[in-house]
């Protein structure tokens, strides 16, 4: 895990407090949690494991390994993004530029989620290339070992990078404002919140809830989930634009007078 030096907020002309950074991280993680590819793969994995008459213990091992893979890859990507942002962009003192890029990403991905995220057909197919989706489905069906489930969890996060890149980037930027101890806390907070739905589904399935019930709920609410994820991204983008771009620019202009 990469820990990065806390930024000097005075030098970078920002008034971001630790609390604001944590709120941005938590909200980004919440948006990340509303994305569905890992959940789809988890339900598919569970459905095949139960259908093959595997034991409850095997089901638990596979679903836990999958979830562990997801959270580990999420944390690694977040740390990597934070390190890249800190090394190549923020250390040059261009905090306005980095926030502006982040806002553009949030708004762009937010609109894309509104328009594209789910395919307009029966079921809960997502807007990822069909060949890739078929590969993921086949791999999920053929998963028998916990190590395979773990790798599948890692892969599911990478497969959804097109959508989760926006909340990950914003959380990574916010992380660079925290002290090293708080960065660990921020990474843990992001990992935990983004994992919550997966944890809930894992516990529900292992507790005996029918997969078709979960899938029906997801299908019935897919429009809402899509709208919530897209809106969350756009709202966060707008907030950051006002708070970190406009406010800082106005303050800088006032100081120069």
């Amino acid at each position: 895990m990469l820990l990065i030096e806390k930024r000097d907020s005075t030098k970078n002309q920002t008034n971001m407090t630790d609390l604001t950074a944590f709120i941005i991280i938590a909200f980004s993680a919440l948006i990340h949690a509303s994305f569905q590819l890992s959940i789809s793969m988890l339900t598919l994995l569970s459905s095949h494991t139960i259908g093959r008459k595997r034991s409850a213990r095997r089901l638990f091992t596979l679903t836990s390994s999958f979830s562990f893979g997801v959270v580990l890859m999420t944390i690694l990507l977040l740390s990597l993004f934070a390190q890249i942002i800190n090394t190549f962009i923020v250390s040059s003192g261009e905090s306005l530029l980095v926030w502006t890029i982040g806002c553009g990403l949030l708004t762009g991905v937010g609109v894309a989620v509104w328009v594209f995220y789910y395919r307009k057909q029966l079921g809960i197919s997502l807007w990822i290339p069909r060949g890739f989706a078929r590969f993921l489905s086949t791999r999920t069906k053929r998963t028998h070992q916990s190590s395979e489930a773990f790798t599948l969890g890692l892969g599911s996060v990478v497969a959804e990078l097109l959508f989760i890149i926006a909340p990950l980037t914003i959380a990574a930027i916010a992380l660079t404002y925290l002290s090293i101890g708080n960065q660990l806390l921020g990474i843990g907070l992001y990992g935990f919140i983004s994992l919550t739905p997966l944890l809930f589904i894992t516990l529900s399935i292992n507790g005996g809830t029918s997969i078709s019930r979960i899938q029906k709920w997801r299908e019935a609410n897919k429009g809402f989930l899509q709208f919530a994820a897209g809106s969350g991204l756009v709202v966060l983008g707008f907030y950051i634009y006002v708070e970190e771009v406009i406010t800082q620019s106005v303050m800088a202009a006032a100081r120069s007078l």
Partner: protein
Amino acid sequence: MTEVIKRNGKRQSEEFKREKLHQSVHAACLSVRSPDGEAQQTADTISMVVRNWVDQKPSVTSSDIRRVAANALETFHPEAAYLYQTHEMVV
């Protein structure tokens, strides 16, 4: 003998295999936590319904088989039917 044409016609067509259908319906029923005996019975019934339908045709597509099986399953086990129907539309 009824010929089954695979999805998109990409793979070679094959003979209708009752066991294959039985296995997938059985798995769908087990996935929604049906007891094994009930799942077995449902799969037997659905396989028979589809077999009778297939026997009247010289050739069918694999999508047709899935659709007919899902319709029949809807009557006997709606929850399993939902899972069976949307199985390819999860990811």
